[in-house]
C-alpha cells in the first residue's frame, strides 16, 4: 500500500501486510500494510482510539491479528508468543519492576536467555554506559528521576538486542520540559545504536521531531505514510492536514478552474485562487481548503500581486514567543482564524479589534474535494 524510499540495499526489518483486528463488531485496525527498513525511526501518529496501540500490541505479540501477516526480518510471526519474538516493547508507564534494582531489571531478559553471570554483568555495565547512566546499577527504581527511568526502560530492552524496538508513548507521563529534552535524546540514542524503532504517539511534535517516517493513523487505517517534511507540506488527506500541525480550514464551492488554478468562493463571500496540485474537481463541487497560520501574510506589500487578499478583525493577540499568533475573524463572519505573527517588531502596533488585510499565495494552500459547500 505504502512504499517508502525504494532503496534495494536496505533490509526490511518489519513488514505488516493487510493486518486487521476486530473486537466483536468493532474494527480496531482495518487492513493496514507497511514496511520498516533496518535502522529507521518509524512513528505511528494518531488520536487516541485510532487503533495504534492495538497495532503495536499485535507486533509485540500480545494480541493476535484477525487477519493479515506480520513478519520480522522475513519471518512470519503468526503464532509466535511475545517472549519468543525478536521485538521488545517500552510500555507507556515503562513497567520497570519495582521489586528489583536497576541492574536486576536490565539483567532480567538476559537471565531468561540463560546468558552467563559474567556476561550479564558486562552487558549490563555496557548498556548503562551507553544510555548515560554509568554507576546506577544498584539504585532502586523509585530513586530515579523520570528521565532516568526512561533510559533504564530503554536499556532493559536494548540489552537484548531486539530487531525492532517498539515504544508505546513512553514520553507521555513526563512534564513538558523533560519531554522536549527526551525527544532529542531518544533520537540521538536511536542514531547511535542503529536499532529499528517503531514509536506510537498522539503527539505530532514527538513524531515529527524524531522520526524518519511517520504514518498518520485514523479510525483503524493509515491516512498517509511519509517523511515529516512531506506530511507537513503535502498532506494527502484532510485528516492529515488537520492533525499534523495547525491548519485553518474552510469549506467553499468551486466556481472556476483554469489549468491547475481553481477559484473557490467561501461562505463569507471571499473568492480565492488556489493550486489544486493535480487533484480533479467536478464543476460546482464542494472544496475543503486548508491554510497554515504561517502561510497568511499580515498586511502584505501592495506590490505583491497574485495574492488572495481579504480583510479580518483582530480578536486577540496570542503571544507565545516565536510561536505567537493572531486570533482573527473575516468580516461578516464568526469563523476564527489563526494567523502567524512574526516577532520582528514589524506588527507591534496591531491591537485587538483592528481591521487588517491578510494575503496568501495560491500555492501555499491545500485543497480537497469536500462536502457540498454550505452558503
Amino acid at each position: 500500500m505504502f512504499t517508502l524510499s525504494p532503496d534495494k540495499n536496505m533490509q526490511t526489518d518489519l513488514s505488516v501486510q493487510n493486518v486487521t483486528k476486530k473486537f466483536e463488531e468493532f474494527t480496531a485496525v482495518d487492513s493496514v500494510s507497511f514496511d520498516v527498513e533496518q535502522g529507521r525511526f518509524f512513528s505511528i501518529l494518531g488520536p487516541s482510539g485510532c487503533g495504534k496501540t492495538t497495532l503495536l500490541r499485535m507486533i509485540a505479540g500480545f494480541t493476535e491479528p484477525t487477519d493479515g501477516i506480520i513478519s520480522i526480518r522475513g519471518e512470519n510471526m503468526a503464532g509466535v508468543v511475545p517472549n519468543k519474538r525478536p521485538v521488545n516493547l517500552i510500555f507507556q508507564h515503562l513497567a520497570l519492576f519495582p521489586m528489583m534494582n536497576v541492574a536486576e531489571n536490565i539483567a532480567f531478559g538476559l537471565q531468561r536467555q540463560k546468558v552467563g553471570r559474567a556476561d550479564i554483568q558486562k552487558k549490563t555495565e555496557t548498556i548503562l554506559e551507553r544510555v548515560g547512566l554509568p554507576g546506577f546499577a544498584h539504585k532502586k527504581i523509585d530513586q530515579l528521576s523520570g528521565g532516568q527511568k526512561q533510559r533504564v526502560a530503554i536499556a532493559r530492552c536494548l540489552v537484548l538486542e531486539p530487531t525492532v524496538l517498539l515504544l508505546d508513548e513512553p514520553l507521555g507521563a513526563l512534564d513538558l520540559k523533560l519531554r522536549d529534552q527526551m525527544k532529542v535524546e531518544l533520537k540521538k540514542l536511536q542514531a547511535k545504536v542503529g536499532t529499528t524503532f517503531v514509536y506510537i504517539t498522539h503527539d505530532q511534535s514527538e513524531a515529527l521531531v524524531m522520526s524518519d517516517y511517520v504514518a498518520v493513523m485514523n479510525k483503524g487505517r493509515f491516512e498517509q505514510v511519509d517523511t515529516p517534511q512531506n506530511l507537513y507540506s503535502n498532506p494527502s488527506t484532510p485528516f492529515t492536514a488537520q492533525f499534523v500541525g495547525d491548519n485553518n480550514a474552510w469549506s467553499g464551492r468551486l466556481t472556476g478552474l483554469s489549468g491547475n488554478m481553481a477559484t473557490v468562493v467561501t461562505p463569507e463571500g471571499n473568492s480565492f485562487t488556489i493550486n489544486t496540485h493535480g487533484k480533479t474537481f467536478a464543476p460546482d463541487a464542494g472544496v475543503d481548503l486548508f491554510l497554515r497560520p504561517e502561510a497568511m501574510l499580515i498586511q502584505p506589500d501592495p506590490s505583491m500581486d497574485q495574492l488572495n487578499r481579504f480583510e479580518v478583525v483582530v480578536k486577540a493577540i496570542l503571544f507565545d514567543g516565536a510561536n505567537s499568533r493572531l486570533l482573527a475573524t473575516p468580516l461578516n463572519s464568526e469563523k476564527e482564524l489563526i494567523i502567524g505573527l512574526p516577532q520582528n517588531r514589524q506588527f507591534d502596533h496591531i491591537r485587538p479589534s483592528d481591521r487588517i488585510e491578510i494575503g496568501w499565495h495560491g500555492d501555499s494552500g491545500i485543497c480537497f474535494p469536500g462536502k457540498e459547500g454550505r452558503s
Partner: protein
Amino acid sequence: MKNHGRWYLFFFLTPILLWLFLMILLPHMDLLIMSFRAEDDFGEMVWSFANYLNFFEEPIYWATFARTALYSILVTVLTFIIALPVSFYITHVVAPKFSGFLMLLLLLPFWVSELVRVYGWMILLRESGVINHFLVQMGILDKPVEMLYNDATMILGLVYTSMLFMVVPLISVLESLDKSLIEAAYDLGANMWTILVRIIIPHSMPGIVSGSIVVFMLTLGNYLTPNLMGGKNSLWFTEQIYNQFIASFNWNQGSAFGFLLLILSSLIIWAGLKLTGQKLSKVVK
C-alpha cells in the same frame, strides 16, 4: 490544629486507656502471674515453675503443642497455595465485569458462623454423611466409611475456615499489581513460572505476610474445628487449655499453657515479619 485544649485529648484517651489496660494488658499480666503460682505440698499457693515443668515433663502436652504449631504452619501454607491462583484469577484473568461478582461470592460463606460451616462439613463427611451416601449409591463403596475425625479432615476444615483471611489481603495486593509489569516480563522472555516467582510473589509480599499472620494466628487459636472435626488423636493445644480450665479446674496449669501458646504465636509472627522485612503496623492495613 495543635493548639486546641488538652481536654479533647483526655476525652479520646480515657476510654482507650481503660479498654486497653483493663481488658488487654492487666488480664494478660494476671495470666502470667497465675501461671507461676502453684500449690505446694501443704496446699498453699506459692510462686513456682511447677506448671511449666509439668508441660515439659508430660510428653502429651508438648507433643500436642508441637503438633498444633506444625499443623498451623501447614494450614497456612496450604491456604496460601490454594488462595493465590483464585485471587489472581479474580484480579487479572476473569473479565472485569465478573470479578466484582466473584469477589462477593467469595466473601459470602465467611459471613456465616464458623460453627455452621463446620457443621456443613460434618454432615458431608461423616459415616452417615452425604458424600458416603452418594459413593455407596454409585457403587464406588460397598459400605460407608468414616471420613471425619482424622487429621486430614481437620486440616481441610481449618483451611476452609481460614480461606477468607488469605484471599482478601491477596486480592487487595494483587489489584495494585500493574498488568504491564507482567506483560513487560513476558515480552522480555519470561515464562509463567518466572513471572510468578520474580514479579507476582515479590509484589504480593505484604499481602502474603498479613494473610499468613492472620491465618496462622486464627488456626493456632482455633478450638471449634479441631474439636468437632479432629479425631481422638488429633488433639489441639487449645483443647488442652480448655481441659485445664473447665474439666480439671486447674487454672494455674491452664494459664501456663495459655501463656506458652501466646509466646509461640508471637514468636512465629515476629519471625515471619523479620524474615520478610515487614512491620506489624503496615501489615494490619
